[in-house]
């Protein structure tokens, strides 16, 4: 019995080591492949350069960083309010039976392959933006034009893609708030709206923020869907209707045929993406710690 347990213990440990080591190896590999080109080209020129033309030997990735950040922020701006509102609706307003139906429908969204989202965006959303959204923008700025391949298209698709994460995690967090909180609030004469906004959401805060962080992680790393609908133009965008290229999209699209230096430059893009995601995660975790601490 004892030896049996020992074997199991060792196997579990091996699994843990393998998982940790693969992270370490991937990190080392990305940095090893990308750093030389970054150093050669100049770290500042690489990150702040505004021209990305690998064939011509120009590797400035600032437009790509701007593209990734603008699409991600756009997705969060659309996805967070929608997601939290949906979670509140499911947890507090809808009776449990229909709520279960709604919830499984939303979770089904997570099972759709991202390339399908991309194709949907390409044939439905992109023309819709060109035909219906553009005229609205033109009321304010007559000179604005768009092909539909835009930050907006990417943001809307990404918002839909991160909804399942935000909704199901937030809904769980809200449902997990002790019933006494709600009862006490109602007993004190607060109405339902006040109870939700002043008691339930603040109490579920840390769960909601975690869901947003996970959603953001997915939005930033998402490649295929965005690749098809943002136009992949490596320019700094001026409005939400402009085309942009993202860090992940550029890596995925150009890796297959790239020449050696170009390929190393793509690894360097990977380093930047890596650092951005680490920074965002760190900030987000610190925020959760601070907010979670005072919330309870």
């Amino acid at each position, binding site marked *: 019995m004892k030896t049996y347990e*020992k074997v199991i*213990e*060792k196997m579990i*440990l*091996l699994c843990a*080591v*393998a998982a940790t*080591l693969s992270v370490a*190896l991937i990190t080392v590999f990305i940095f090893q492949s990308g750093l030389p080109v970054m150093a050669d080209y100049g770290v500042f020129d690489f990150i702040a350069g505004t*021209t990305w*033309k*690998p*064939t*011509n*030997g120009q590797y400035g990735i600032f437009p790509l960083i701007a593209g990734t950040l603008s699409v991600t922020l756009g997705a969060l701006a659309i996805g967070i309010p929608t997601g939290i509102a949906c979670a509140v609706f499911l947890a507090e307003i809808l009776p449990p039976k229909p709520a279960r139906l709604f919830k499984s429908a939303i979770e089904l969204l997570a099972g759709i392959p991202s390339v399908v989202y991309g194709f949907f965006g*390409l*044939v439905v959303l*992109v*023309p819709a933006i*060109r035909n219906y959204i553009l005229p609205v923008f033109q009321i304010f700025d007559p000179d604005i*034009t768009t*092909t*539909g*391949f835009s930050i907006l298209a990417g943001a809307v698709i990404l918002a839909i893609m991160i909804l399942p994460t935000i909704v199901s995690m937030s809904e769980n967090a809200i449902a997990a708030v002790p019933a006494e909180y709600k009862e006490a609030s109602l007993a004190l004469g607060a109405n339902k709206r006040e109870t939700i906004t002043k008691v339930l959401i603040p109490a579920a805060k840390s769960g909601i923020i975690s869901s947003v962080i996970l959603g953001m992680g997915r939005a930033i790393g998402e490649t295929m869907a965005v*690749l*098809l609908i943002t*136009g*992949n*133009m*490596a*320019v700094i965008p001026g409005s939400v209707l402009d*085309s942009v*290229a993202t860090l992940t*999209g550029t890596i*995925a*699209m*150009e890796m*297959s*045929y*790239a*020449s050696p230096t*170009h390929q190393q430059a793509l690894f360097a893009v990977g380093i930047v993406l890596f650092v951005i995601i680490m920074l965002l995660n760190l900030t987000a975790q610190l925020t959760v710690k601070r907010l979670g601490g005072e919330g309870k």
Partner: protein
Amino acid sequence: MGRNLLKKTWIAGLALALIAGAALTGCGNGTDGGNGGDGGDALSGTVVIAGSTSVQPLSEELAEAFSDVNGDITVEVQGGGSGQGIKSIEDKIADLGALSREVKEEEKALIAAETVIAKDGVAVVVNPDCGVSDLTLEQIRKIYTGEITNWSEVGGNDAPIVVVTREEGSGTRGAFTEITKVLSKDEAGNEIDGTTTNAIVQGSTGAVKQTVASTPDSIGYISLGALDDTVKALNVEGVAPSNDTVLSGDYKISRPFIYVSGEEVSPAAQAFLDFVLSDEGQAIVAQEFIPVN
């Protein structure tokens, strides 16, 4: 005791990972490959093909079909670019070199024979609603470098041109930019891709076709084999793109796929070449490119 065990397992895990890492690197280095067969009656051995990445997918498909009939011959397909195709013949590290362009004059001395195995045409396509149906190479170049930005400058309606292109490094983009001279060389001899930054970039032939089909006033380019009636193919210099006009050389945006070889061709490599030019091989070519026989 428990701590000691933990430590040991850690080291074991680390060692394992190191071994795995070494094995992976080993694989990466082992590309020198076997050269040619043994020349016996029953053909066997390895045929190494190196060169153009545009030819690579076709070579791989041909190799697969070839292996089905000649199980004893292994065909290894490597990339590296057309230049590498010549170089690997010169250095005798491959049996066949693959090129997606004509053999240059200065390269002819380095090889013994060349065989055109297929032709590839690039069709310039526009949205079906576009009024323009004929462009010159010069006009196409100016559109893609951003000198011409409105259809009215080439005889169409007054509408801005939406330029759609392929990603950097794509073989189709390489062929298109080279033939239309969007790709030029600076004084130092470095290649400069002059494609305007205001071009939508799509990562596949299908995505370009879909984009052009659904975006008014757009122009793009796709491999001739992928052409269908969701988009309108333009005449280039007055010649409509088709298999016949590419083969006759009248349609300008086309390129040959060539296998080059050295003085000595192993029997296995010769068998593969014969297979490629046979009806069966050319039928595989025809799935995506234009057969030569």
